């Protein structure tokens, strides 16, 4: 077991020496999380729009439930999807468990309510006149919806970034659904958990640096977007 200082130095060597295992882990993380966000974003944002602009009975309780689901623990999502995908589960025949697809499904389930809630808040705060103006100028509902979304695009993009940051850093669902298989389903958070438990800090620190850099970059983007949105 190496000291923390040694591990830090080793971590930097790993990062800058194009260590194949390390970069494979980073690749898995981005592949899975980007796929999840690409699937989640359009669906969640359209539904968020419907929730903000349509009027239907029971709307308020639905909105409350959606906002409550933001806080759903990743491990509970992992368990629920695991029970669906396990060999004896309803989707067991698809043999998806311990694959990157299963991890993507878990992250979709985890990210969807978060993006739905954040998107709903952004669209709810949008100027209602955008919708009315688009409609009175003859735009069909789908075009009026895109017009409203374009007007609050910075807030929506911020919501997408926040959801991406949450799913790429989650460990509970990924470890249950992916199984943390080397060169296959091992991603950044599961690798950090594993290496730390083995006392091998170098790889954990290197991956931690990647996650921290990502978090800083995303936060920087978010503050830029907030600034742009506020200036309008």
């Amino acid at each position, binding site marked *: 077991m190496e000291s923390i200082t040694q591990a830090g130095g080793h971590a930097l060597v790993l990062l800058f020496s194009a260590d194949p295992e390390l970069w494979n882990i980073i690749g898995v993380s981005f592949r899975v999380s980007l796929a999840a966000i690409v699937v989640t974003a359009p669906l969640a944002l359209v539904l968020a729009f419907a929730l903000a602009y349509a009027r239907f009975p029971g709307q308020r309780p639905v909105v409350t439930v959606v906002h409550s689901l933001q806080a759903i623990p990743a491990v509970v999502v992992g368990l629920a999807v695991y029970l669906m995908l396990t060999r004896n589960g309803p989707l067991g025949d698809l043999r998806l468990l311990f694959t990157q697809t299963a991890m993507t499904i878990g992250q979709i389930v985890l990210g969807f309510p978060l993006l739905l809630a954040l998107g709903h808040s952004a669209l709810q705060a949008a*100027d209602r*006149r*955008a919708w*009315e*103006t*688009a*409609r*009175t*100028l*003859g*735009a*069909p509902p789908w*075009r009026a919806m895109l*017009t409203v979304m*374009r*007007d609050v695009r910075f807030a929506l993009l911020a919501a997408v970034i926040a959801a991406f940051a949450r799913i790429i850093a989650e460990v509970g669902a990924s470890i249950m659904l992916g199984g943390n298989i080397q060169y296959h389903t091992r991603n950044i958070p599961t690798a950090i958990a594993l290496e730390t438990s083995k006392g091998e800090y170098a790889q954990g620190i290197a991956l931690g640096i990647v996650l921290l850099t990502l978090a800083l970059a995303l936060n920087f983007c978010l503050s830029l977007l907030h600034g742009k949105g506020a200036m*309008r």
Partner: protein
Amino acid sequence: MTPSAPLLRFRALRKTIGAGRILLDIDEFAIAAGRCTMLTGPNGAGKTTLLKILAGLEPPDRAFVDYDGTSLPWSAARRRYRREVIYLHQQAYLFDCSVAGNVAYGLHGLGLARAEVARRVAQALDWAGLAHLAPRNARALSGGEKQRVALTRALVLAPRVLLLDEPFTGLDEEARERAGFLIERLKADRVGVAVTSHELPPLARIVDLHLELRDGRLAPPARTQRAANKTHRPADAAPRGRVVYLNTGAQDEAG
């Protein structure tokens, strides 16, 4: 259709809000081509809601609509007169793009070629004296310029009815005169106009009928009715009393 026959008529219009409070309970309200109707009433009387219902932006609890001689339910009527009955907010809302992009917005839905859209936009901006602002971001304009862009954006679609929500609020004397002149031009082009105001009409000469919205009902206020009788009317206007703008059951337009 006779020159001043109602183009758009709502009958038995009812709108409730909250726990069943009646906001609007109007027997009949009509807008005729080339005529201007002024709606006044205190804040919260429902003037904006009425205009939005007319424009198809807000659903009434109940309403029967006659448009261009055809009777339709409200939901079908609003599809029928899409782009022909246009509502303008008190404070113009412009999309976050150029002035030209704003004016082109409604035209893009007409299936026109790109070049034709550009030609119509350029023509409309010339007409409105806004050509020099075409590439500017519409959000960066002054309040008065925004209003003119919003109006141009509506007029480029050649609407048959324009619903103007408090168009005179916040305007100085000169801007009011200009707005009044524009409404006169619209009337001359056979556009039906309805304007709301929370105060007495600032430009009486453009108003053919002044109605007051109070307690959910429309009525020609007695004081203004006398003023309306003195109002200038276009030469082709039908004899007074033949065109029924309003029938609250209480009072018909004086003959």
